[in-house]
């Protein structure tokens, strides 16, 4: 994984991708800690990830313009999104001592130009944390985007200050 970055308006995460579309597995979360998290891959990388998950050899996609994701693939991508997003957001819940509640994972094929609009929908998401990763042995690359509400950012900052005060006596 790369070191995560904060992104207020520059949308630097877009540089991770070269193609015009990405496959997004996303979950909204709330109950004291509110926002939306996205696990995104270029379509050909999503297909490779599914192949790896079902235990088949991961071979480079011959024609990146012809990627067909069937229901089984979408089911696996939805479950991968569920696992990764729960692992990340769940630790925020543990840190803040609250139980974050999740929506069902959603799979979408979205245009990169639409991601700004999606991240900022409802006007509640003011901070985007993003990181990219490469799975060892497979060269599968993707990104995690977490959009947080103002209240959630405040909660995190309060907690960080509290921890800092505890450490410093």
């Amino acid at each position: 994984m790369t070191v995560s970055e904060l992104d207020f308006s520059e949308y630097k995460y877009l540089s991770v991708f070269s193609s015009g579309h990405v496959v997004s597995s996303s979950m909204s979360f709330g109950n004291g800690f509110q926002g939306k998290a996205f696990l995104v891959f270029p379509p050909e990388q999503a297909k490779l990830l599914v192949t790896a998950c079902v235990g088949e050899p991961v071979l480079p996609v011959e024609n990146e313009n012809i990627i067909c994701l069937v229901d089984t693939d979408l089911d696996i991508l939805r479950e991968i999104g569920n696992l990764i997003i729960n692992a990340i957001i769940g630790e925020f819940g543990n840190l803040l001592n609250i139980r974050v509640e999740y929506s069902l994972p959603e799979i979408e094929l979205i245009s990169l130009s639409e991601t700004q609009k999606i991240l900022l929908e409802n006007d509640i998401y003011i901070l985007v944390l993003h990181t990219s990763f490469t799975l060892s042995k497979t060269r599968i690359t993707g990104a995690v985007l977490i959009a947080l509400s103002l209240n959630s950012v405040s909660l995190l900052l309060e907690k960080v200050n509290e921890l800092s005060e505890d450490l410093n006596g």
Partner: protein
Amino acid sequence: MKILVVDDSNFVRSLVGKALQINIPNLELLMANNGVEGYNLYRTEKPDLIIMDLLMPEMNGWELLKLIREVDSSIKIIVFSADVQRATRDEIEIFGITSFIHKPFNKEKSEQLINIVKGEFGA
């Protein structure tokens, strides 16, 4: 022995089902896609054990667990979820579950599940 697996992911149901079929003799496996289907199968089939996810459409695992516990305090239930929050586990354990296993379902979790089933039922 009758085991009901309730999970909205066909991929997960298939993985869990295969592990059980390979390791548990005389198994009758039941599969449900959500809490509603799971509850209906629980009422009609009376399984010995239910393995359930928490985040599901129609009726989630919390609601399913509550409904079952209102009428049956003894059936063994294993929660199998991606939720890593301590608060979730604490609240779920109030319902008297047999075990809480975190996804993903890998070799280690498969062995954990099979050991629990064999331990509980002497299978």
